[in-house]
């Protein structure tokens, strides 16, 4: 039987953004299950802190400085990771772009920033890591977007715009990768970028919200979900299916 205590034993994982509460929980969870993790952070202090916590569990894990707004920086990040890891089998895209401005208040600069952070960064990492995964017939890609794609929130059009494209990209990549055993799934997260709690939802939840998110990432990264691909999972405590009355 599968070893459920070490679901990712011996695997190499990449998390593009380990800096926010969610990304941090994901990195720790993957490391706890035996994966060697490479993750990007914007603040080296956070990187060191996470590394300190996971160094016992996976000593070879490391972080790199990465701003998703910098497209050359992402290329650099992918290159370095590929040098260090023999084969990356888990890729977690956790973009964080969020600008709370209405359509009228916003400017072109905002568009460029958000599209780079939330869209292009995903495309770039896919380009870098999908090929080797396909060649080796093994891989799981998890793209985290926002549940505002289905339930828009007023005053935040750009989050919806930039995250909305991730679903389509996920399904196309999953279609392409299906026969090569590369699985691609999307998580529509109810935890908005930078937050550590879900937006208000009907479900009474005990325990940490970011842990719950990390558990779903673990499920999708591991072989537990070996027949699941091209899907979008909503993690929002049931808010998506609730009619507001």
């Amino acid at each position, binding site marked *: 039987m599968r070893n459920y205590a070490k679901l990712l034993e011996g695997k190499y994982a990449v998390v593009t953004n380990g800096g926010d509460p969610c990304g941090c929980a994901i990195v720790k969870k993957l490391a706890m299950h035996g994966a060697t993790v490479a993750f990007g952070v914007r603040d080296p202090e956070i990187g060191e802190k996470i590394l300190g916590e996971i160094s016992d569990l996976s000593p070879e894990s490391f972080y790199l400085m990465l701003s998703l707004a910098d497209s050359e920086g992402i290329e650099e990040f992918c290159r370095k990771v590929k040098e260090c890891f023999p084969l990356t089998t888990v890729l977690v895209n956790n973009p964080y772009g969020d600008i709370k401005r209405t359509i009228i208040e916003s400017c072109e600069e905002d568009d460029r920033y958000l599209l780079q952070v939330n869209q292009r960064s995903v495309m770039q990492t896919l380009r870098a890591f999908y090929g080797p995964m396909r060649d080796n017939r093994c891989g799981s890609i998890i793209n985290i977007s926002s549940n505002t794609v289905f339930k828009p929130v*007023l005053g935040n059009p750009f989050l919806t715009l930039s995250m909305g494209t991730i679903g389509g990209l996920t399904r196309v990549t999953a279609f392409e990768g299906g026969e090569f055993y590369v699985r691609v799934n999307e998580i529509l997260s109810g935890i908005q970028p930078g937050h550590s709690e879900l937006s208000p939802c009907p479900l009474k939840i005990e325990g940490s919200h970011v842990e719950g998110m990390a558990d779903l990432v673990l499920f999708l990264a591991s072989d537990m979900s070996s027949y699941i691909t091209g899907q979008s999972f909503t993690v929002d405590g049931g808010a998506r299916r609730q*009619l*507001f*009355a």
Partner: protein
Amino acid sequence: MDYQRLLAGRSAIVTGGVGSVGRTVALLYARHGANVVVLDEDEVEVEKIVQELRDINQKCSGFAGNLRDPESIVQLCNHAINALGTADILVNAAGTYLSGDAETLEEDDFIAMIDWNVNSTIRFTKAIIPYMCDNRQGDIINITSDLATASLPGTAGIAACAGAVLAFTRSVTMDYIRYRVRANCIVYPLDGIEGRRPLTGAPAPEDVANAALWYACKMSRFIIGDMLPVNGGMDYFAGMRGE
């Protein structure tokens, strides 16, 4: 296409034609030139709506019978086909709804609700679809609650019926589209379920009827297995301004 008379000369069967939505659909179809037959349970009410329909189009008629019994449904359909000669459009608008969660809703009520909503839709479709296949054309429009895709507390039975009708629509259209029989679904918020929606106010029966007209006419001839929510964008609504 004559946009004043979109359904000129076509024969339509409207089940549940006494209810506010079914009635509005029947009248709108008649105004657009269709020969309409309404089917429902209450004889007196059916007679009233037939009078109204005949003021618009002499060829309209109506029949009363039990909509929960398979044999009675076959009989009603035979009457309707005899009156119309054929069937081009079937609107399943019959339905009754009771709220309640698993604990408060009685099993018998739930079974009755499935009979009213789901089984009647399946049975009417079964009875009418052979005529549509013979004609190599036909439009089926199922009208149900918008709880098919989004939920509220205390609506388990309604949601089950609505979800079933929606899934039925999708599958049945796959089977018969080779005969050019289309099926589509309209969902709308039921009376008494008030929600805060981006478009304020509740939809009128006319709003649902207009959608039913669009699905019945040639304008939508390339749309199959589709769901149209006539609910002011309610299920897309996450937060109020400033939240």
